């Protein structure tokens, strides 16, 4: 609305200069339709508007806009029209209708406002669309096309078609042509035109094209004694299979084709209303707790004519069987609905394929998050046999590091670039500290390590709560990560998720490089496979363990920043990812980067798939996923990529 107003003002300004010599023309034209303009009605306003449009005067468009906004007043004394604004103290600020220039103020006693009603405003609006569609300002034309897209109407079709030819902007022209097709499909004059338009929609994935098809295919549920010949029947509904019997009967009741059923509470009310001397139809009220006696009592009342008779199941079946239930197209022409059905089935298939692709993208992005969250855990578990329950808290620590950096560095891009290495450094340090102080003393007691790290986890969580409070802290992504990459109306993915995917790829490559190509990687692999042998080869397992733990924790910090960009940063955020990370490691198999990748892909993909089957319920999705994992472990106890040798723990 506000935008429309601004636009109108712009239009006024544009129209202003040449208005001077045309001033009298518009005013005189208005005078010929004075009555219709002052007190317009839906039926009569058409001619006036048509005349105005036909005049081709540049001031017509702003006039129509302001008329629509109820800003046109007539001076009673001379019948001249003005634009006017109420100033509050019964005064009006007047503007010339042609130039839009202020011409002074006057008391409102002498003026009468034109108040077009909704119907009239629509007529004016359609006329305006024509102006806007061929307006010299391209943004104006876009605006007009958008408004038609939003509220398609049969009347707009010829108007739109007329302007396509003269459209100078190729992309807008294409858009207009497409819109014309959509409108033709719904409102075209001839069946052939419409069918042709509908057929071109069969490979269109956009939401508005699908909406057009759906509108053409709209049906109403109907009921009749026999199937009528003269209607366009979509399908016949079988009571009992396509619709429940009770629902079919309710339809009959609504159409006054059958008597209403008596609900248990109505029966009860009827009985209560007919108690005489503690008896209903001769049956003592005390016995009416028995459903059979209650039925008897009601039947007796019905026989006496006091209450309407009970509709039995058999009555219902009989009434339903005597009628035919069917869905009728709103569209009368079967040729069109057939074409639309055919186009729709094509569209449905393509939408399905694209949805699967979109789901794949979603799954991939979830998988990369799980990969980032789990890989650190997998490394420490694989190399040291240590399950770090505080891993989730390292993720949280990384996210809070990002938050703190953003408080200091205002530029989001710079702060992100600072936050990533800093988060790594902070959690690397925390990891090394934890390894030195706690884990080192608990090697070969894996269950106790698990519990000790859990102790650290609750302490860290509470500490974060004490420092940062319980409310969620924002971690704002830089502007260039806002928005989404949109392939079509079905497939889209936000840039943040793409960035996280890239980040995961970078870390995958980096880890593979570190593990396969560096001295540290060689030593880590040696310790993973046989710690005793590695030690005797002069590798210091102590140092390797420390570095590995630091590395695993550091990656958790990076993951924390990444997760913080799209989810909220709270002291409990680690808990949301820790179990999934465990699952990823367990499913993937320990001590192997590829295993973790496989695990993350499987879990991410699975979760998205389950959510797709039951989109409303993510809780159920997680439940089923965990059940799946428990079963999966049955068949591959060591994960997808099983490590052979000592580290496999047999």
């Amino acid at each position, binding site marked *: 609305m506000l935008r429309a107003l601004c636009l109108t003002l712009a239009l006024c300004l544009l129209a202003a200069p040449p208005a001077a010599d045309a001033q009298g023309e518009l005013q005189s034209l208005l005078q010929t339709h004075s009555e219709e303009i002052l007190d317009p009605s839906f039926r009569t306003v058409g001619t006036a508007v048509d005349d105005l449009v036909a005049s081709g005067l540049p001031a017509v468009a702003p006039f129509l806009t302001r008329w629509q906004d109820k800003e046109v007043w007539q001076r009673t004394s001379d019948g001249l029209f003005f634009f006017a604004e109420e100033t509050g103290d019964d005064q009006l600020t007047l503007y010339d209708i042609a130039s839009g220039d202020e011409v002074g103020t006057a008391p409102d006693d002498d003026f009468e406002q034109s108040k077009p009603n909704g119907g009239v405003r629509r007529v004016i609006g359609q006329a305006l669309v024509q102006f806007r569609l061929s307006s010299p300002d391209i943004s104006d034309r876009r605006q007009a096309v958008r408004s038609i897209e939003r509220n398609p109407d049969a009347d707009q079709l010829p108007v739109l078609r007329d302007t396509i030819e003269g459209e100078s902007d190729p992309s807008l022209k294409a858009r207009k042509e497409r819109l014309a097709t959509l409108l033709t499909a719904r409102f075209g004059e001839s069946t052939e035109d419409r069918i042709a338009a509908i057929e071109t929609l069969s490979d269109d994935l956009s939401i508005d094209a699908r909406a057009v098809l759906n509108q053409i295919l709209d049906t109403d549920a109907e009921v009749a004694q026999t199937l009528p010949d003269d209607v366009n029947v979509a399908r016949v509904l079988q009571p009992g299979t396509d619709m429940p019997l009770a629902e079919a009967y309710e339809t009959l009741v609504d159409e006054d084709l059958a008597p209403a059923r008596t609900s*248990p509470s109505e029966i*009860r009310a009827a*009985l*209560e209303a007919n*108690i005489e001397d503690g008896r*209903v139809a001769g049956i003592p*009220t*005390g016995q*009416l*707790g*028995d*459903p059979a006696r*209650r039925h008897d009592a009601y039947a007796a009342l019905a026989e006496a004519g006091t209450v309407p008779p009970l509709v039995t199941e058999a009555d219902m079946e009989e009434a339903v069987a005597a009628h035919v239930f069917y869905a009728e197209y709103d569209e009368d022409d079967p040729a069109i609905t057939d074409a639309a059905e055919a186009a729709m089935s094509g569209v449905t298939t393509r939408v399905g394929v694209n949805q699967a692709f979109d789901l794949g993208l979603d799954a991939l992005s979830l998988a990369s998050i799980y990969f980032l969250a789990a890989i650190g855990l997998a490394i420490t*578990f694989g190399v040291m*046999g240590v*399950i770090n329950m505080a891993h989730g808290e390292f993720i949280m620590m990384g996210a809070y590091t990002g938050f703190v950096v953003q408080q200091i560095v205002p530029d989001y891009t710079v702060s992100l670039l600072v936050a990533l290495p800093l988060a790594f450094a902070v959690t690397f340090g925390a990891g090394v500290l934890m390894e030195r102080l*706690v884990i080192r*003393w*608990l090697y*070969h007691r*894996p*269950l*106790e390590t*698990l*519990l*000790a790290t*859990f*102790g*650290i*986890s*609750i*302490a*860290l*969580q*509470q*500490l974060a*709560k*004490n420092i940062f409070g319980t409310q969620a802290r924002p971690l704002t992504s830089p502007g260039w990560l806002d928005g989404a990459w949109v392939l079509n109306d079905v497939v889209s993915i936000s840039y943040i998720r793409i960035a996280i995917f890239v980040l995961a790829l970078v870390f995958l490559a980096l880890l593979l490089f570190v593990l396969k190509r560096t001295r540290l990687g060689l030593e880590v692999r040696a310790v993973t496979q046989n710690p*005793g042998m590695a030690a005797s080869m002069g590798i210091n397992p102590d140092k390797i363990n420390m570095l590995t733990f630091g590395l695993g924790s550091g990656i958790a910090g990076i993951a924390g920043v990444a997760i913080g960009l799209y989810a909220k940063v709270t002291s409990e955020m680690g*808990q949301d990812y820790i*179990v999934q990370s*465990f*699952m990823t490691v*367990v499913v993937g198999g320990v001590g192997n980067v590829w295993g973790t990748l496989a695990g993350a892909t499987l879990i991410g993909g699975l979760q998205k798939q389950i959510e797709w089957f039951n989109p409303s*319920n993510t*809780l*159920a999705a*997680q*439940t089923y996923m*965990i*059940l799946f*994992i*428990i*079963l999966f*472990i*049955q*068949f591959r*106890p060591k994960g997808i990529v099983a490590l052979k040798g000592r580290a496999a*723990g047999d």
Partner: protein
Amino acid sequence: MAYTSTWQKFSTRPAMPRRGLIARNPSVLYFLLALAAFTLGVTLLSEATGVGVLSTSFVKTLGKTLCLCLVAVAMDVVWGYCGILSLGHFAFFGLGGYAIGMWLMYARTEIIVAESLAASPIPPTGQEISEAIASQIFGVVGSSELPAIWTFADSLFLQLLAVVLVPGLLALVFGWLAFRSRVTGVYLSILTQAMTLALSLYLFQNESGLRGNNGLSGLQNIPGLEDASQASISIAFFWASALALGLGYVFFAWIVSGKMGSVIRGVRDDEARVRFLGYHVEHYKLFVFTLTAVVAGIAGALYYPQAGIINPAEIAPIASIYLAVWVAIGGRGRLYGAVIGAAVVSLMSSWFTGGGAPDVNLGVYVIQWTDWWLVLLGVTFVLVTLFAPKGIGGLFDLVADWRAPHRHEDYGPDASAKRAEEGEE
């Protein structure tokens, strides 16, 4: 060597005649005496049966603590004795609570509904009653139909059976799946944690038929005992909890002593060796896992009527981890350790988080225990794991050593060698 004579003295005894459980485990007797004394003390100090020094809510807290001790004993058997670090036993505890809670809620709603329907001139039909109960109970989740799992909710007997069967069957099926695929160690812990998480997420849904995150409430009102005061109900539940703990303790002491105890401790220490002795290790694990799950369920069924409300958050994985923390702090591998751990940590936890503990003013910063208790607990727990792996119960060893100092020399030269060996592995 000096110790030889000592051992000769023992070995000259004739083949050991069968001795009673208590004679073999004097700690059982001490425990039972302490429990009896505690129960008597609370009874005498309570409002309902004594001088009224202890408030009803405190009696409830103590009763609940006894239930927690019972589930901790079960946890100790499965973890401390059998070596399975289950992060799912609090889920079984919760399931027991849900099973009894269903009856409590149904039966009580039934009484209320019957009262309100009695006002009308026509007596209600059975269907009307059950519909009214359903809309009373499930109105909060926008439903008025009784889910199928509530079919037996009107029968106290069947729901009591469910207290035992539901956790038992879940443990049996889960354990069978997990143990048969030889999932052990931390893997198993994580799997049990996953099971717990799945269960709590499931219960959080309204579709679970257990009122979603609202849980079951009003459980402190016992149907049929409307006239009894909460004070007398609380002391009755306290007695029941004490009895359950006593019986559970003796039962588990019996399980872990004798040959059964020998085998399950063998499973804990060297699973493969037990297998090569011809024992089906999986069967033993399943036996212990299921049995302790059943006891956890019973403990839960006693706990939640005292707590008054149960919701899925109670079952969340963290609760089961806390259970492990209690046992670890108390000292695992000894039943009284679990009891001490559960009692001390849970009571301290409610003291600290309930604002009972005085704030510490450091001048620059005031430590409020409601904020810092978890930090303290976490750090304490790490310290206990590092420096006192035997937990509080380990203190009793010091006492025993002090009373029988000669035992110290008895550790052969290999005790340290063994540790060194382990370190190399």
